């Protein structure tokens, strides 16, 4: 590897590339593009958006250039007819390998200098934010493209088989499952999406698939372009001679020209499709500057009066602000959705995007409180478009109000980033976790029935103490049975079924707190989302309609929303796929494994979960007619648990439940209740 031959060939290839005018032209062009894009970014959130699009475009561009440069180098070699000589030399693998690495190093010239130029010129924090991913993706992309092109050209010349080889190998590469999170879209769909990716909402790509699978998507996209380039080469191919690089010189140029046009066009479409987003993005300016306001002030009480007219929301808020820091506070930041305009306030307020800066007239001493009165109004409607499906994370229309806690519809302390452009963990950052002593929400608008996670204490009044989150839903189509600790929001289309689901959930919920006594009930969501424990027992296999579960609890509340689109929009019952989409995307955001419940999971572990479900369900229904349920019809594991419960009581069951997750799949594959029981007893 470090032999003389290796280095000789490596440096020769590098030298050959560096003496190519094409290389310098492409690099200069790309540097100009990178610098102009990065320099045109205004506001840090705009940067995030642009960075995303830039990353996408850049991957495509660099891949095309890599393929083209590799072919061009081969073609120059051909033009100078050097290969005629070299091929007869007694060279082995290390020489072409050195040539490949030289070529790769050369292609990295497309990546590093433009980046260095951009980073030297501008403070691009968000650009740096994803730099590691970017570099990794690019490196993989470049290595792969040049390897394939290089190898195919060297091995097969310009034969159709090279094309299919590149295609086939690339497909395989692109479809390698994401090790971090499964791509929850089927294989052909991914292909389609990636091909249509131009003009598509890149937030969504990121949001749904996460960083790594995004890399796979990139790869698909690159494949598309490499495919175009390579097929062009074949279209123009006139003569083929094995072990010679046929006709690349002219075709290389054509390929490059088309690649450039397509890429610049794609970049243009991207940037254009951002105009709307950019307006929103500007509103988020400064969003990344986490001010840690929570450390300085907190809002201890909320009194909100809510009214909506058509699409307009009118809210008057009275809040008690307390200085929780050690020093005096004369101004602080609040977050409020950027389309909600402040019409009246008892302190001067400056607005920038989501962020309100409140200036007090006198510094607030540590521990002191002040009352902030704020009136704000405006539309609140946020859409995300995904091919074939619309996602509308929050909205207010004349027919429906859907204001989950993350809609920023009430002021919270500090600045929040609500950019879906970054990974999920950021998008669902600790938005609105209020330690409010009380939250009173009065609805002045009688036209719609409303539901909230806050208990309804009076007609049109929701009130809770020690509140961490507040969601508000309103719809004519909605029913909201609130029983004990669970509030259910769902469509009346599913009334019967939802009531049944609610019953199940409540039973499970109670059963949970019983069998995991050390887990406080109000943190049951955290428990639910933890795959390692028996979180997914909450998935009731029969209730395929659970679309949206697990809004964070308030006090001892679990808010359960089934079929939110259906319940809250006037679009009529949504299609299965839309509901599925919402379910998948929300669950992927929340990190939950709902898909295990939605799709028949044949694995033994899944069966075990069902068995535990059945057991919990059965024990939660001891009093009623359910007691008459045929125990023998239960899964063997559930039967064993029931027997154990009779023998050893809840303590025994808790001990066993804690040990179950560590058992192997083979353990769960057994259908012998007696064997299970023996194991449980013996333990």
């Amino acid at each position, binding site marked *: 590897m470090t032999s003389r031959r290796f280095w000789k060939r490596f440096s020769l290839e590098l030298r050959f590339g560096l003496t190519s005018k094409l290389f310098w032209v492409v690099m200069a062009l790309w540097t100009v593009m990178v610098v102009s894009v990065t320099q045109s970014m205004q506001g840090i959130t705009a940067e995030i958006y642009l960075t995303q699009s830039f990353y996408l475009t850049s991957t495509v561009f660099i891949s095309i250039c890599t393929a083209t440069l590799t072919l061009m180098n081969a073609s120059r070699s051909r033009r100078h*007819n050097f290969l005629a000589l070299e091929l007869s030399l007694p060279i082995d693998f290390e020489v072409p390998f050195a040539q490949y690495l030289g070529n790769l190093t050369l292609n990295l010239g497309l990546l590093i200098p433009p980046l260095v130029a951009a980073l030297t010129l501008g403070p691009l924090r968000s650009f740096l934010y994803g730099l590691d991913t970017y570099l990794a993706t690019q490196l993989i992309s470049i290595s792969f493209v040049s390897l394939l092109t290089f190898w195919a050209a060297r091995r097969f010349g310009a034969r159709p088989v090279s094309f299919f080889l590149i295609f086939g190998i690339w497909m395989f590469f692109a479809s390698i499952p994401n090790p971090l999170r499964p791509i929850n879209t089927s294989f052909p769909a991914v292909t389609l999406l990636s091909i249509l990716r131009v003009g598509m909402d890149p937030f969504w790509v990121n949001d749904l698939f996460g960083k790594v699978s995004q890399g796979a998507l990139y790869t698909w996209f690159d494949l598309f372009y490499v495919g175009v380039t390579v097929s062009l080469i074949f279209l123009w191919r006139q003569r083929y001679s094995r072990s010679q690089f046929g006709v690349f010189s002219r075709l290389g140029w054509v390929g490059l020209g088309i690649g450039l046009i397509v890429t610049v066009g794609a970049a243009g479409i991207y940037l254009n499709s951002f105009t709307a987003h950019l307006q929103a993005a500007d509103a988020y300016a400064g969003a990344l500057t986490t001010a840690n306001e929570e450390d300085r002030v907190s809002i201890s009480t909320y009194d909100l009066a809510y009214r909506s007219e058509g699409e307009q929301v009118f809210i008057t808020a009275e809040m008690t602000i307390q200085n929780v820091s050690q020093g005096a506070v004369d101004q602080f930041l609040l977050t409020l959705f950027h389309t909600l305009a402040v019409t009246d306030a008892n302190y001067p307020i400056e607005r920038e995007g989501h962020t309100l800066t409140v200036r007090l007239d006198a510094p607030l001493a540590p521990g002191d409180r002040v009352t902030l009165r704020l009136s704000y109004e405006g539309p609140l409607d946020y859409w995300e478009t995904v091919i074939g499906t619309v996602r509308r994370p929050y909205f207010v229309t004349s027919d429906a109000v859907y204001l989950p806690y993350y809609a920023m519809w009430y002021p919270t302390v500090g600045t929040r980033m609500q950019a879906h452009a970054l990974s999920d963990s950021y998008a669902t950052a600790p938005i609105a976790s209020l330690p409010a002593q009380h939250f009173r929400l009065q609805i002045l608008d009688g036209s719609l029935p409303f539901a909230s996670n806050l208990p309804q204490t009076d007609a049109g009044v929701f009130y809770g103490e020690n509140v961490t989150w507040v969601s508000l839903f309103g719809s004519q189509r909605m029913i909201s049975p609130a029983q004990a600790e669970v509030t259910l929001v769902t469509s009346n289309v599913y009334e019967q079924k939802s009531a049944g689901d609610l019953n199940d959930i409540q039973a499970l919920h109670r059963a949970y707190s019983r069998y995991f006594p050390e887990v406080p009930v109000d943190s049951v969501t955290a428990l639910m989302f933890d795959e390692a424990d028996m979180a997914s027992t909450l998935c009731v296999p029969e209730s395929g309609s659970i679309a949206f579960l697990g809004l964070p609890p308030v006090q001892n509340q679990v808010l359960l929303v089934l079929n939110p689109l259906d319940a809250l929009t006037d679009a009529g019952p949504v299609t299965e796929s839309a509901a599925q989409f919402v379910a998948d995307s929300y669950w992927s955001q929340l990190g939950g494994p709902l898909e295990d419940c939605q799709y028949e999971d044949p694995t033994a572990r899944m069966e075990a979960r069902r068995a535990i479900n059945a057991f919990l369900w059965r024990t939660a229904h001891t009093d009623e007619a359910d007691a008459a349920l045929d125990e023998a019809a239960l899964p063997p594991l559930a039967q064993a648990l029931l027997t154990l419960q009779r023998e050893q009581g809840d303590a025994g069951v808790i001990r066993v439940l804690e040990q179950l997750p560590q058992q192997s799949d083979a353990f769960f594959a057994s259908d012998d209740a007696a064997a299970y029981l023996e194991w449980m007893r013996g333990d």
Partner: protein
Amino acid sequence: MSIEVTQVSKRYGKVQALDNVTLSINKGIFGLLGPNGAGKTTLMRILATLTPFDSGSVVVNGHDLQRFPGKVRQSLGYLPQDFGFYPDLTAYQTLDYIGTMKNVPPQRLQADIQALLELVNLSDVARRKVKGFSGGMRQRLGIAQALLGDPQVLIVDEPTAGLDPEERVRFRNLLSRLSSDRTVLLSTHIVGDIEAVSTNIAILNKGRLIFAGQSSGLLDQAQGYVWELTVPQSEWEKIERQTTIVSSRTHGSQITMRVLAHQQPTPDAQPETPTLEDIYLAVVHDFILPVSEEAAAK
């Protein structure tokens, strides 16, 4: 040190570049003669392991070429007909690169390169970039690279193309010297090149082997078919119909011709001693000589 070519055929689309060629090449210079498109380069590229062939077999120094191309390459010096160098390397760097690829030991390489540059008369321009070289200089550099590593088998495809007469003579002498202890396969369509250095020849035409063996044998077989005659210019066409004209020169209204003919073409035609050139042209013009490989080999 031998090359055995057995019934090798190669087809490019509709063109039968080589048609069932069988050849045995041993130590010394072997000349491959043939007009343009005869298949010389194709055969040499096959021997240099660059072109796969359709059928037949090639054994070089006991190694089957198709199965052990690497082994064959190790003992091979090859000068392609069309080749090029990286234009930004100097003559010295080029040889250094190729010598390294040929695994010439580093401690020997520098001296070898100097000697070879001397041999091909390029010492003065060793530090100049190849892109500034004339065609002849490139050709000489090509010869030098083929000789790097002291190969046992030297395959040179039209090596004298583009060389001036002085260089051409120098090169012939060089090949003669080299052939004393190795196999040299030389292709050309310049008969004089071969005549001067090689006694073993093969003639290819349209992919078929017309003749292979000692050139003396070939000359013997052509004995009695070469004539010189002088006729009035007006009779040119008649003679052309009856014979194959090898050369002609006019003086006044008369024209003197060297022709190939199975019988005495005119009563005053004088029989001539055949030269290789005559035979070569006969082949090119499809003049049937009663020679066969067996006859020639005798």
